[in-house]
């Protein structure tokens, strides 16, 4: 019965997060507009880079533009901000309440992130037309790739949420993490492949990025969408993402156990 009860509680968390998203809808729309402005610039930049060529390194310009549009749009939706929430809760000492709840803290957070994601989905009504105007949207390379992309998106979400959670857990050791978080964002922006897909990275950079989990958030799913899967095949691309999703689960379990013991409840 505990599982069922926990599930109810988690769904409630999710609903709360969904409602919170609705309150911030204006901010979200603004972020989508900014994403549109970025997509348009990237489109112009890469069109200029291609010049008269219709294909570079086996990647047609068309696929490249669709890649940029979807990757950046997707990244806007897959950018959870739990790390800030965690830091806030610890700073204000409210983490004590969170830890006292019968549902585990990481579970609360993931449920919240899921609710947030659901709250964001209606925003696609705004985001897709903006992306369509700013960049280039085409249907996926084939029906099969379309379905694979959807599966890949779910895995991408799992990796994105868990990585963000992991960064958030650092707050249990130190609250001074502005610089740290900034570094993470920078590396993240780059290594997801949303600005420069891995195809066009210099060899050394690519081989580093291939060892990191960030590519599972943008490059892997979107390269499936445009029919140029990262690892050469759809299944191996999905397997790569699944691998990272599982690794993150294990790492978080390990880190969480230590973080919990390290908890400092301020004030209260």
């Amino acid at each position, binding site marked *: 019965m505990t599982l069922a009860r926990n599930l109810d509680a988690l769904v409630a968390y999710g609903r709360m997060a969904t409602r919170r998203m609705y309150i911030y809808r*204006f*901010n979200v729309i*603004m972020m989508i*507009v*900014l994403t549109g*402005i*970025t997509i348009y*610039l990237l489109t*112009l*930049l*890469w*069109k*200029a*880079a*291609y*010049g008269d060529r219709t294909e*570079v390194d086996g990647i047609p310009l068309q696929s490249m533009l669709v890649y940029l549009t979807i990757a950046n749009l997707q990244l806007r939706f897959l950018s959870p901000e739990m790390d800030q929430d965690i830091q806030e809760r610890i700073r204000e000492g409210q983490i004590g309440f969170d830890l006292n709840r019968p549902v585990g803290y990481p579970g609360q957070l993931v449920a919240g992130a899921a609710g947030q994601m659901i709250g964001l989905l209606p925003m696609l009504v705004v985001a897709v037309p903006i992306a369509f105007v700013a960049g280039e949207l085409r249907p996926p390379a084939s029906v099969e790739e379309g379905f694979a992309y959807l599966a890949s998106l779910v895995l991408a979400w799992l990796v994105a949420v868990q990585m963000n959670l992991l960064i958030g857990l650092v707050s249990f050791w130190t609250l*001074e993490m*502005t*610089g740290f978080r*900034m*570094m993470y964002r*920078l590396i993240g*922006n*780059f290594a997801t492949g949303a*600005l*420069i897909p891995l195809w*066009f*990275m*210099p060899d050394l*950079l690519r081989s580093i990025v291939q060892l990191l989990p960030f590519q599972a958030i943008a490059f892997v799913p979107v390269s499936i969408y445009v029919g140029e899967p990262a690892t050469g095949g759809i299944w191996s691309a999905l397997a790569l993402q699944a691998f990272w999703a599982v690794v993150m689960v294990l790492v978080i379990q390990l880190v969480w156990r230590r973080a919990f013991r390290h908890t400092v409840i301020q004030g209260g």
Partner: protein
Amino acid sequence: MATVAQRISILLALAGASLRSEFQYRANAVSAVISGMIYQLTGFIAVWIIVARFNEIGGWSLAEITFLYGMRLTSHGIFYACFSQLFEADRVMVTGEYDRYLLRPMPPLLQLFTRKLRVNCFGDLIGGLLLLGFASAGVDVAWSPQTVFYLVLAVTGGALVEGAVQIMLGSLSFRFLQTMSLRVTVNEVFNLYGNYPFTIFPKALEYLLTFALPVAFVAFFPASVVLEREDGLHVAPWLAVIAPLVGVGLFLVALRVWRRQSRHYQSSGH
């Protein structure tokens, strides 16, 4: 009425105070500067990778684009050092902090500017100067005292252009109170589109980013002049040459707009 000299000395004292207050937390300030610089440089690295891979973009070489990027970033650093508090205008008006500015014998706008210093502007400045330094060796320019002087004027003018636009948008807060999202969006357009040769833009956008929003005057026009790339311009070359003057002109207009709009200030009371 205070003389100009007195005013400048008060201004410097206020600026010094805000600088000192930021460096009270030295480690924090230093890390803000460094992360600001890294943030800007990674933006550049993305461009660098693309240009290095494709040799040129819009007819501009890597060195030329680096130069343009460096000019824009330096201008932005100066803009941010002097005018970062414009982004706080909403709060200053909503909380009624502006009341205090009206009581002191100093133009309210200057008091807003010196309210606080955002030290990460030094990251932009250092990053921009580094790029300019690297690029100036690589570009095909016969450096003379005149070109260096023009460059200094241009970078300052660029900061004034960005400042003017943000002052005008900020003055809307007197009427509408919440204009933050508009200002952030416009700032982002300057940050993204100002760094690239306009030759990669469609014609309509080139004109839009020249006459509707003066992005071209921040760095692209003066960089074209220094690099002698006037051939690709979508306007008469003389307009590009006077970019620093345009900055001064726009700034003076912006000050007038601010003063006019400030009549609509409604104190929230204390």
